């Protein structure tokens, strides 16, 4: 997926990367214990993806 001068990510890949990075950042900043961090990261990632895909489907009827 890396081509020429830069990255070429699909919409889904970009959303996944964004969700993963932000979830990890929130987990590390807001929780202290490793187990709490993992739980928070997974829960945050799940919600990011759920809302992202949900909004995508909500916009689908207006896309054409």
């Amino acid at each position, binding site marked *: 997926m*890396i081509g020429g001068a830069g990255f070429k990510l699909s919409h889904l890949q970009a959303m996944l990367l964004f969700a993963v990075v932000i979830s990890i*950042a929130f987990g590390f900043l807001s929780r202290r214990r490793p187990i709490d961090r993992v739980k928070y990261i997974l829960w945050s990632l799940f919600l990011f993806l759920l809302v992202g895909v949900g909004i995508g489907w909500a916009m689908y009827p207006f896309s054409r």
Partner: protein
Amino acid sequence: MAEEVETKTEAQAAEQGAPQKDSNREQFALAVAVAGWMLPGLGHALLKMWGRALACFLLVGVLVFVGAGMRGNLFTSHANDAFESLGFLADLGTGSFYLVARSMEAKGPDVSHAGGDYGTRFLATAGVLNLLAALHAYEAARGRKA
């Protein structure tokens, strides 16, 4: 009686020293915040929060690297409208990584495709995330629960 006087004197000295101590702590917290802004993770590293320091450095670095690689718009101080000014402030939040992103974007931004637009968001997110991390380090240095 002498013990009582001595105790009072110690208490008075402690009261007088407290504002000085608070002032020193505040200055240190500000230094930590500025360090954290200039180099992502450095603020937490100064507080010996190694995990958070490494996480901030890597995560902000990844966002900047991918954002610049996708040829996102890295705003400059020559803004034409309020949104560009806000974008510049957000991008500036990455501190020294702003210069890294600028050096990576030798061909300039390309927002004619969705990838460039995503890159713009990644760069802005990196800046805002780093500001959040710097504020977190500031609060931790002040002794707030972090």
